[in-house]
């Protein structure tokens, strides 16, 4: 098989050939131009490690499918020998199927419904948190963190099938160690100059302050709303309270923000399905 076909070009490409090939490959990738991502700091905050895990899971799935196809072929042909191997799918992507959203310290891939989202997804995007300065304290003396994500960059024809907001919480010790905390995520509906924003509760989780790991909030409906109404995208707010309603400082609750390591940055991830068959533009 390593016969080199006589017409194969084995030499360094000339500049114009290189540009032509780049343009051709970009059009295969469905991209109008080559992206020029700026500021490595921003790159760090868009959860590349999480996405790399997803990529590896997806690549493993494709390799498994290949092997399966070959196995099936062999299995059929071996049938007459009477020992066809069962083509049984192992759990896709090798996820450990932790039944709850509160997961272990390993990269935040261990929720079972992620496996399903990834199965169906044509595309997954993790978004850069656009909030540069944390305002820890609201007008009404409430501790909170803000997050904003620009969902207008989504390629045409892609529909959100699921979206999650993920934030990491470290073990917090000290005076809250044995306390149960309630972490809540809100969608900002309206902002005011001199008073707290109007918000809408999306999801909340009860956790023990001494636990650590990823918190996963389902914000599919909100993401779809923002995609359809970008002007109404005013971001999210996250608050931590004790069970009797006292607002707690993020740091003492162990919530990791932008100042944490790259592998523990908060981020929004959305899963998409192509809502129409995308045809390459005819050149």
């Amino acid at each position, binding site marked *: 098989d390593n016969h080199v*076909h006589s017409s194969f070009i084995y030499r360094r490409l000339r500049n114009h050939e290189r540009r032509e*090939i*780049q343009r051709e490959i970009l059009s295969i990738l469905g991209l109008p131009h080559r*992206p020029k*991502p700026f500021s490595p700091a*921003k790159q760090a905050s*868009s959860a590349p490690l999480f996405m790399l895990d997803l990529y590896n899971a997806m690549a493993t799935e*494709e390799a498994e499918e290949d092997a399966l196809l070959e196995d099936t072929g062999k299995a059929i042909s071996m049938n007459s020998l009477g020992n066809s191997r069962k083509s049984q799918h192992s759990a896709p992507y090798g996820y450990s199927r932790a039944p709850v959203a509160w997961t272990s310290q390993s990269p935040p891939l261990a929720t079972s419904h992620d496996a399903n989202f990834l199965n169906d997804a044509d595309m997954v995007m993790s978004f850069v948190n656009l909030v540069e300065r944390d305002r820890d304290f609201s007008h009404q003396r409430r501790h909170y963190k803000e997050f904003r994500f*620009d969902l207008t960059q989504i390629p045409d024809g892609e529909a959100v099938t699921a979206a999650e907001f993920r934030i990491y919480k470290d073990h917090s010790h000290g005076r809250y160690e044995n306390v149960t905390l309630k972490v809540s995520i809100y969608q900002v509906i309206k902002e005011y100059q001199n008073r707290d924003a109007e918000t809408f509760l999306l999801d909340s989780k009860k956790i023990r302050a001494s636990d650590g790991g990823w918190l996963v909030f389902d914000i599919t409906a909100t993401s779809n709303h923002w995609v359809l109404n970008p002007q109404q995208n005013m971001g999210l707010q996250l608050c931590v309270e004790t069970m009797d309603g006292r607002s707690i400082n993020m740091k003492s609750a162990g919530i990791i923000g932008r100042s944490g390591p790259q592998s523990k940055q908060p981020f929004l991830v959305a899963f998409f399905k192509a809502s129409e068959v995308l045809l390459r533009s005819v050149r």
Partner: protein
Amino acid sequence: ATGGKRKNPTRNKGRSQPKTSQASRIGDQNISEQKQACKKHELYVSFRELGWQDWIIAPEGYAAFYCDGECSFPLNAHMNATNHAIVQTLVHLMFPDNVPKPCCAPTKLNAISVLYFDDSSNVILKKYRNMVVRSCGCH
């Protein structure tokens, strides 16, 4: 029925051939047999070579493959020919000037995934279905 009509190998080649090409060495052998039967060939697209490391996180490149080779009579088993290709071959034998031979094309395609940064440094994991040739055959 197409009997005596031989294509002129040099005209057909149209490609720069190393002087000591196999065809000239073999002499009068039947040309179509010398030509490669339809099969899958390796073509590697290297994102690294294209200078795209700053925005493509993974993979470094992918084996794209392409299909090339002859679909001449007789279409035997390893040419992975469709039934239609067999009919096409027979009709070509009858009307060689009007009806083309079957062509060598992909019969199965695979998906690949690409992980990259967009202009705003968001990370995109995209699955491209039917992207890479898995097997070739005569159609």
